[in-house]
């Protein structure tokens, strides 16, 4: 891809060791170090949110009170699970970690456009997280959706928590803004828009959504505080406000936020499959167009979360039809990934397994999404376990699996070590089967009409709930195992990673592993399309 960088550098000196001490990490403006700051923080919340999820699942394993004796604690736990996972883990997720690490490397830049702003974004995130942690002393019980007037009247510390979410949103905006400017301004010579890797395109689309959608939810959250503090009368119907307006404003952000989570994962899969198939990404242009189309159309479909929420039938029909428009670019992407494998030379390293699992999980997520876009069927499924299972397939099966895949794929570049392939494949298997075992029963529960956010349920739902809980433990075990494997090999691993272990054409693989402080000893000049694998005359098998 590139007329590779000069090799005349000291291979021993890299971004991990050129400055030493914890302080040099906490104050570093190096995008690669900031990636690690984010990574450790968000994984802490992944752990906390995961524990909350397992407590919820344990409570639901059997009908009647199981380990949690009062519904309030249960409500707090599922709220905590949602708030932590959404605002503190998945939204920063891939963009703030791998986006940070990879965007400058992949476009041939020394850093992001505003390195100090990048570090500031991280600390804004930390402040938001700390405020959220303080709010946990009187933990909120509203669900992560903060619907009024429940959120404007409940006695728990909603103001503090929504303020935390506002601050976190601010961090997200600054990150998105930074990435947009970086991609516009800092591409290496020869790196034209149509030579950008699909991960960059996905990150670009994500950054646009972050910048456009997040201010809207930020203001909405502030209005909840205004409502609670001095009864501004905007969302609370007892004061003349309109709770449905709050839902509109909330989903104007919170639908696109799904694409903030999952678009980068699309990008990751688009990077992994060509490398391990030794084939160019099939229909690169269409994949790029579909990423941008998803980002665009994603802004006009928000009210499909509100088909039964009291919006007019006309609005419901409009939003149903535009929602189907999202299905088309999504389907295109899947077709293109699979076609990339045609006549390839496929090796099954762990990242490839995750990528293939992603295709399956995302097919399930996408097709079940079709049910929910269909008006008449959504009326039945709205706020049931079917929806719960659907969005876990999207967000966990999509965004989180994408993140884990990416961590494996770029692990050699990030740490300069190789992870243990056998252990990671075993963890993958546990995680994959656990995940499906958790959520397939939940689809069935939804078909039977089981509503979500229920502390207790009629006894006939018990069998499926029990199976789901067993799956959840297996799933949690898989994640723990996979991440522990990465952490262990990063710290104590003996196998040094070569510069380009997968023989990839990506620009990030042309510099040393791990890269030097400013990435490239000499800014590379790009002369090729991103996925020029194979030979023009090659015939395959």
């Amino acid at each position, binding site marked *: 891809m590139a007329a590779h960088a000069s090799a005349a550098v000291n291979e021993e000196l890299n971004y991990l060791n050129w400055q030493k001490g914890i302080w040099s990490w906490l104050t570093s403006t190096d995008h690669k170090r900031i990636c690690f700051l984010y990574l450790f923080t968000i994984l802490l919340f992944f752990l906390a949110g995961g524990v909350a999820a397992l407590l919820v699942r344990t409570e639901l394993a059997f009908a009647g009170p199981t380990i949690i004796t009062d519904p309030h604690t249960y409500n707090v736990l599922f709220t905590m699970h949602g708030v932590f996972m959404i605002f503190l883990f998945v939204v920063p997720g891939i963009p703030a970690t791998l986006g940070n690490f990879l965007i400058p490397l992949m476009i041939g830049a020394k850093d992001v456009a505003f390195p100090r702003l990048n570090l500031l974004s991280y600390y804004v995130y930390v402040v938001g997280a700390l405020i959220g942690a303080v709010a946990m002393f009187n933990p909120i019980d509203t669900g992560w959706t903060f619907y009024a007037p429940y959120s404007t009247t409940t006695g728990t510390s909603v103001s503090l928590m929504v303020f935390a979410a506002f601050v976190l949103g601010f961090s997200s905006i600054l990150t998105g803004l930074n990435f947009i400017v970086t991609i516009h*301004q800092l591409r290496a010579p020869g790196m034209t828009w149509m030579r950008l890797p699909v991960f960059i395109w996905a990150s670009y689309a994500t950054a646009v959504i972050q910048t456009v959608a997040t201010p*809207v939810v930020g*203001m909405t959250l502030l*209005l909840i505080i205004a409502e609670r503090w001095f009864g*501004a009368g905007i969302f609370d119907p007892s004061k003349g406000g309109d709770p449905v307006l709050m839902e509109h*404003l909330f989903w104007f952000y919170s639908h696109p936020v799904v694409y903030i989570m999952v678009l980068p994962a699309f990008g990751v899969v688009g990077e992994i499959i060509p490398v391990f198939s030794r084939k160019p990404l099939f229909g690169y242009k269409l994949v790029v167009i579909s990423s941008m189309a998803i980002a665009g159309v994603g802004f006009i479909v928000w009210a499909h979360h509100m088909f039964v929420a009291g919006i007019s039938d006309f609005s419901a029909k409009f939003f149903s039809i535009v929602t189907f428009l999202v299905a088309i670019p999504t389907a295109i992407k899947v077709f293109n990934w699979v076609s990339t494998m045609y006549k390839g030379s496929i090796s099954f390293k762990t990242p490839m397994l995750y990528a293939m699992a992603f295709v399956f999980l995302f097919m399930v997520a996408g097709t079940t999404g079709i049910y929910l876009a269909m008006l008449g069927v959504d009326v039945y499924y709205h706020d049931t376990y079917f929806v719960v299972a659907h969005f876990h397939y999207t967000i966990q099966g999509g965004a989180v699996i994408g993140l884990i895949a990416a961590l494996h794929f770029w692990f050699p570049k990030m740490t300069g070590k190789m992870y243990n392939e056998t252990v990671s494949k075993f963890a993958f298997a546990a995680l994959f089967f656990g995940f499906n075992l958790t959520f397939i029963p939940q689809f069935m529960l939804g078909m039977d009409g089981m509503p979500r956010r229920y502390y207790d349920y009629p006894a006939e739902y018990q069998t499926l709930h029990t199976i789901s809980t067993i799956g959840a433990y297996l799933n949690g075990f898989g994640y723990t195992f996979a991440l522990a494997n990465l952490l262990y090999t990063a710290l104590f691993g003996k196998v040094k990673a070569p510069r380009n272990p997968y023989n990839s054409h990506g620009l990030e693989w042309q510099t040393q592993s791990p890269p030097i402080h400013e990435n490239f000893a000499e800014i590379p000049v790009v002369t090729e399309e991103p996925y020029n694998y194979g030979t023009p005359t090659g015939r395959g098998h």
Partner: protein
Amino acid sequence: MSAVAHPIVDHNVPPGEPPHIHHMDTPTAYGAAKLGMWLFLGTEILLFAVLFCSFAVMRYYHLAEFHDASKHLNLWAGGFNTVILLISSFTAAVAVTKAQKGDNAGVVKNFGISIVSGFIFLLVKGYEYSEKAHHGMFPFVWNSDFYHYKNFLGLYFCMSGLHALHVVIGMGLLYWYGVRPAMNNRFSGKYYTPVELGALYWHLVDLIWIYLFPLLYLVG
């Protein structure tokens, strides 16, 4: 807050020269800073868009109350503030021209006028608020005669309060990124990015008020 990514008062850099940025060249840095600022202004507008949208919805539900309540706002104070902000925006624009010509004293003078205008704006705003509080048209001290105006006034305080916060931030930016470095003769035809960005931000503050004033004081 600011999208300016480089130190403004860097004593290693001779006056009038752009600061050295290790990871990009000067024209790129200028372009990046400007693009970043425009994007940031876009997010600010979206922030206020929520309030405008809520205003439209609430006005639809409470048309008569909105109409009556807006008559209770002090039209003269609001009008005066509009003029003040327009003047300040003009001087902010002049400051950019001065910076491009390397006239650092001109930057100090014109940004100074903008900052003082900001102060006057806040004083008048504070007077309006205290007047409202005095008449019981204020959160926590509602007079029951005006309680049915709470939807309008709630939005009025949210919108004008958030705008006032932006005025304060804008004043800080003008001082920190404009006046202070200008006193060190930092700006020249080669380097005036912070002045331009500060002025852009200040124009946004002005622009939002240009929409708030008729909406709150005139249309109601």
